[in-house]
Each structure stands twice: as C-alpha cells, then as structure tokens.
C-alpha cells in the first residue's frame, strides 16, 4: 500500500490547471464552503431518511420520505467534486493523513451499508403493503448509516490536526501516515 500511496501522490503531484486555480485567494475557501453546504444536504437528505426509518415522524410514509434521498446524493456529489479539488491540489496532505484514511473507511461503510439497504430491505419497505414502522433490519442499517456519516464528518474535520510530517525511519504501519 505504501508504494501505491507514493505513486498516487507523485502522479497527482499537485501540478495542474485545477491546482493553480485552487491556489488563488478565493478558490479554496469557496470550495470549502461548498463542501460544508454539501455536508448539510447529505445529512438533510440521507440523515432525515435514516431518522424516519428509526421512527422519527412515523406517520410519514417511508416511500414519501425517500424522495429526499436524491438531495442527499446531490450533497454527496458536491462533496466528491470539491473533495477531489482539494486532493488534486495538495495530494500528500490527504493520501498520507490517517484522519483521511478513517474518513474513506467510514465512506466505504456508509456506501456498502446503503447498498445493503437497497438489496435487502427496499422491496419490503416500498412494496404495496409497506408498513409504517420499518423492519428491525432497516433500523439497524439506518443507525449504521447515521454513525458512518458522522464518522465521515469527524474524519474530515480532524484532517488538519493529523497533517503528515516527514517520515523518520522505516514505516511498518499498513498505510503510510508520513510524507517520505
């Protein structure tokens, strides 16, 4: 994995038109603001649906509440786009950052968890005789989803406190958490 990380950082290199634009005075703060707005859309869309599955607003049909999900996905898409801008500009600050590794881990959990929901619970919840109370499995998935996205926010917010420093001596961890 170390070689892959080093390869990623050197390949991206932070040298591109995008990186140059991102280094202008306003681009980075603007992209950060969009990243925070996307976060709110994600929680507002996906988080609200999770809360509904867990029993908040239990008189709202679950299928009706699901119409908020595309707005959560829009927020996620905004954050993938702006997040990519950050990585393209300062690759080493993310690829070697343990907080970023945890952020990616929680994103993966959130994604696999959502896939599990659509594969296992979707039909029962959205079928013709859908119950107002979600089945227990869907509730567990909703709780995992909320925890995963809170984990993603935490990993993102702590990035600046785990900035990778220069490596000293041989590295034995699974992922490289310092700049070689």
């Amino acid at each position: 994995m170390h070689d892959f990380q080093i390869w990623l950082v050197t390949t991206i290199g932070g040298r591109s038109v995008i990186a140059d634009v991102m280094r202008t005075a306003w681009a980075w703060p603007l992209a950060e603001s969009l990243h925070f707005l996307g976060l709110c859309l994600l929680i507002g869309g996906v988080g609200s649906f999770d809360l509904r599955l867990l029993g908040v607003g239990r008189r709202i049909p679950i299928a009706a509440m699901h119409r908020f999900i595309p707005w959560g996905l829009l927020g996620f898409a905004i954050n993938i786009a702006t997040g990519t801008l950050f990585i393209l500009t300062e690759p080493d600050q993310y690829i070697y950052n343990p907080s970023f590794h945890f952020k990616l881990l929680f994103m993966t959990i959130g994604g696999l968890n959502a896939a599990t929901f659509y594969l296992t619970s979707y039909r029962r919840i959205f079928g013709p005789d859908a119950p107002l109370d979600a089945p227990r499995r869907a509730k567990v998935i909703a709780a995992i989803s909320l925890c995963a996205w809170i984990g993603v926010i935490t990993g993102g917010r702590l990035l600046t406190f785990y900035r990778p420093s220069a490596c000293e001596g041989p590295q034995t961890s699974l992922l490289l958490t310092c700049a070689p």
Partner: protein
Amino acid sequence: MNIDPFLAWVESTALSQWVVGSPSMFAFPGILTLHAIGMGFAVGVSAAIDLRILGVAPNVPLRELRRFVPILWAGFWLNAVSGVLLLIGYPTKALTNPVFYLKLTLIAVAMVLLVRISRQVFATGSGASLNPLDQPISSRLRNLAIASLICWSGAITAGRLLAYTYHRLTQSH
C-alpha cells in the same frame, strides 16, 4: 469602546487556555467536530423542511415534519454550546472580525424564519392529516423557505471564511 481588556481577560481564563492549548483531541479538535456535526443536523433538517415547502417529496405530509424539529434544535444547541466554547478559546479572532457578526446575524435570521415557518405549517389546525393536499402552500411560505435556504448558505460560507478573514488571532499575537 475598547474591548481588548475584556478579550485579554477571557484569554487568560483556564477554560480558554484548555480549549486552545490542550493537546487532547477532545479540546479544540473535538469541539470543532461537534460544531460540524451539529451544523449538519440543524441546517440539514431545516433545509429538508424548506425543500418540502418548495415541492420536494410532495407526498410527505408537511405537518408531520414537525417531528424532526427537535433534532434541528438539538443540532442548534450543540452548536450554540460548541460555538461559545470556540469563542472563549479565540475571542479576539472572532469578535474583531466583522464576518463573525455577519455569521451570527444570518443564523439569527434563519432561526426567526424557522419559527415563522413552524407557526404556519406545524401549529395550525387540530389533528394531523395524512393527506398532503390539505396543506396549500402560499407564496409567502415559499418565500420564507427560500430565504431560509439563502440564510443558511450565507451563514455556512461566512463561518468557513472566518478562518481566512481574521485580523488578529489573540491579544498576544
């Protein structure tokens, strides 16, 4: 009015020095993280209500979204508390920056808008109906929802810009 002595006093308190100086991840980094999580739930739920008013998820009975308002307030209070702690940590940084007052004003307006929206859609009538069609949405209500989304976007942008627009970090810097 010179508030520097007051700012210097705040910075001299043990709480301020713990927020800023403690190596614990539960101090400054943890408070910042709670501030971002609270934002996600407060603004996220508020935006969902606004979007519903503007026609998203039309089969959701608008009145029933009131069950989500406590989550919104929980996020708001989490951010009020974490925000005050961050302010105690860096009072000079915030209080000498006009953008900070802009952020607070936008949040205040957004919360006033929420209360006005709540009065219109959550408090009227007796007994909840599951028929969404009995909730005609006035253009006035739509305007409140649009204003709410604009205020939250502005507050978030102003908040993010605080890291870039301050003139003085602390009294000693």
